[in-house]
């Protein structure tokens, strides 16, 4: 039991830290494509200036994402060896496909994106930006295929018994397109767009409030708001269809999300509240009776399977799933409100003078990040006690060769190193923001100087 808790904590800390960065890369990647595309189309220097600034920020974020991501590729083997033996046949192939189809693409073209400004033509540079953004999205696709298979396994059969039992693939496409893949991919990607959009919105709004880099900031905010508005609506739609899929495929998770205990009764929707797992009730809350049934089945009377219809050992922890889910929904709704409020102010021509709104934008950078974290907690804790839903229990998936002390050792080291990295990241990020964008031609590079010299000769 102790090793299980420690191993889960380690996975949580490493993935939570890692997951600060990939959504930013994906979202910022899309924004870079838009900015550089506009530069190629309009040839206006401001777009090049914007692209160059955000590429630098992108490089920093991407570097941290890679550094923290390497751990993830090996962690299944180090801490979850039994899981790896059991599902390697299926899970491993998605992970390997991610490497071959996505990582090489991203890291290869990233070189041109960051260092290739003077080495390739603007069109090739733009192509590289597109490839990096595409690669980041493909990487999300493959890892979500792998994770969705753990939520809603499909296209497999179990071979062998006892120690030698394992899942083997029978239908690759059924595995890839398992029942939750599409919902979860679109939901996660639109969340990543929001994460990127609110990062650029926050920094640009900060410049506006400080009366610096005005043209840069205004153009950034326009692009950011459009991406944020599209992303937030897509987030709502995919969120709804994700919930419907969860209701169908993982009823215990849905029941935990709304603390729905009765074996069979119409489901209520809570706006907020605190779950009392003893009395199976929600305290201090406001509920909309029958709304959960309505959202899932379009009818307030349809009974939903509650937590009591599952054996106690098959139920996920309720409080944490309930709270995470409600924070996620609240954040999702606020982001829609902020994005459309921004569009409205822009339309009325009041955006640049609405200090109160710009201040909201500055702090709103945290909202999608918190949303990403709690969203994953809903998905992963809601699946418990299973590591692969209804197939393999988390407690049976651990490494047999690893003891608690070893995990404590690595847990402490990871925690320390991540705190250090995060502090350094924030420090350098802050430096970049304080420094701000610069005119592309103000500092001629050594390369250009040399070209000039050659031309003069």
């Amino acid at each position, binding site marked *: 039991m102790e090793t299980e808790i420690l191993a889960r904590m380690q996975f949580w800390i490493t993935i939570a830290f890692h997951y600060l960065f990939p959504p930013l890369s994906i979202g910022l990647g899309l924004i870079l494509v838009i900015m550089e595309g506009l530069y190629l189309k309009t040839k206006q220097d401001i777009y090049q200036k914007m692209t160059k600034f955000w590429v630098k920020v992108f490089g920093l974020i991407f570097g941290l994402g*890679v550094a*923290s991501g390497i751990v993830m590729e090996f962690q299944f083997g180090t801490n979850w060896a039994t899981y790896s033996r059991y599902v390697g046949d299926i899970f491993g192939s998605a992970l390997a496909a991610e490497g071959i189809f996505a990582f*090489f693409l991203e890291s290869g073209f990233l070189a041109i994106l960051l260092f290739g400004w003077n080495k390739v033509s603007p069109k090739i540079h733009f192509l590289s930006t597109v490839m990096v953004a595409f690669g980041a999205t493909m990487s999300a696709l493959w890892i979500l295929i792998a994770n969705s298979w753990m939520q809603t396994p499909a296209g497999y059969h179990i071979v062998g018994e006892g120690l030698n039992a394992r899942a083997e693939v029978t239908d690759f496409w059924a595995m890839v397109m398992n029942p939750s893949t599409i919902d979860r991919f679109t939901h996660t990607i639109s969340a990543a767009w929001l994460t990127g959009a609110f990062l650029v919105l926050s920094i640009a709004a900060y410049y506006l409030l400080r009366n610096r880099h005005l043209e840069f900031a205004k153009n950034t905010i326009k692009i950011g708001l459009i991406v944020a508005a599209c992303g937030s609506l897509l987030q709502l739609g995919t969120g709804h269809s994700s919930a419907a899929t969860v209701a169908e495929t993982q009823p215990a998770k849905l029941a935990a999300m709304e603390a729905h205990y009765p074996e069979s009764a119409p489901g209520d929707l809570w706006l907020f509240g605190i779950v009392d797992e003893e009395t199976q009730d929600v305290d201090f809350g406001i509920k909309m009776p029958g709304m959960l049934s309505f959202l899932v089945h379009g009818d307030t009377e349809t009974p939903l399977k509650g937590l009591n219809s599952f054996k106690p050992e098959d139920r996920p922890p309720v409080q944490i799933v309930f709270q995470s889910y409600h924070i996620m929904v609240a954040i999702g709704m606020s982001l829609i409100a902020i994005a459309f409020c921004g569009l409205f102010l822009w339309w009325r021509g009041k955006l640049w003078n609405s200090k109160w709104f710009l201040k909201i934008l500055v702090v709103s950078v945290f909202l999608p990040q918190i949303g990403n974290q709690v969203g994953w907690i809903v998905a992963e804790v809601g699946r418990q006690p299973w590591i692969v839903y209804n197939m393999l229990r988390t407690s049976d998936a651990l490494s047999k060769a690893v003891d608690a002390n070893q995990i404590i050792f690595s847990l402490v080291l990871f925690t320390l190193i991540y705190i250090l990295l995060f502090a350094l990241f924030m420090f350098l990020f802050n430096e970049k923001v304080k420094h701000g964008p610069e005119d592309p031609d103000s500092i001629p590079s050594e390369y250009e100087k040399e070209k000039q010299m050659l031309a003069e000769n």
Partner: protein
Amino acid sequence: MEFTFDLNTIWFILIGVLLTGYAILDGFDLGVGAIHLLVKGDRNRRVMLNSIGPVWDGNEVWLVTGGGALFASFPDVYATVFSGFYTAFMLLLFVIIFRAVSIEFRSKMKYEWWRNMWDKAFSISSILIALLMGVALGNMIVGIPIGADKEFMGNFLTLLRPYPVLVGLTTVALFMMHGTIYAYLKTEGDLQKTLKGWVNNTIILFVILYVITTQATIIFYPHMIENFKAFPLLFLVPLLNILAIANIPRMVYHGKEFYAFLSSCASIAALLAIFAIGSFPNLVYSSPLPEHSLNIYNAASSEKTLEIMLTIAIIGVPFVLAYTTAIYWVFRGKVKLEDTSY
């Protein structure tokens, strides 16, 4: 050795190719890191760092993809090795993280103490990564205690036996040689002259350790040469290896930097081929109970998965090779420091 050219064998070779790709590519950037502190002056150190600047994280992808491919094709190996080498592997991951951030952060601030600190972190972590990887490889040769349930039965100290440490040191020397040649290829002027002087020293250091390692292998781990005895034609591989190593100083002498680097790549490939031939068909040799070794059959995924993975590889690998080549082509030539450089 029974040899049938089936899917399991193909995957044994493909994993070997991925890891060889990793050793050749990340090998030179680890090597550049290993000699980094010997290079004096901020400008020179920036040149060193930027010689690997655009490519080092792409090189690491070979390791990540190798890990994923190992997980998919031989899940039992992935599970046994990484859970068995837990503490060693965690240390390796820490230094990999540290190295990545030292490259990222070093030139971001202009303070001397800041840059010196990250220079040290970069160089020491590069050396440690090479050392730990070599130690892991050495343990594969010696064999590790594996139970009937395929689980590792030793502890951290099991891994630090003399022979694996020797292989670790040899690996450091090999990457130092490889990295010095790469840096020699990418630099010009005084720095290049200095590096040229170092190439021969690193070759000598590597050859000495290589000879000792080979002797020790033949004496203490004769199971590694049984396949060669059974198929004497395979002795061509070590022969090619020696020729490739001998060719390096020759090319350096003639000033043919690129061919010197290619020879170095070839010698790394040949070294790993020797290791692979010696191990085949085992992936993880079990000692003291060889019957519990994990081989390409008892540790493999289902045939269906190996088939699917082969399809993925056939589709994906040409793309990977195409844009890896394209990237190296774009960044060919000598290092120039620019405002986007590290």
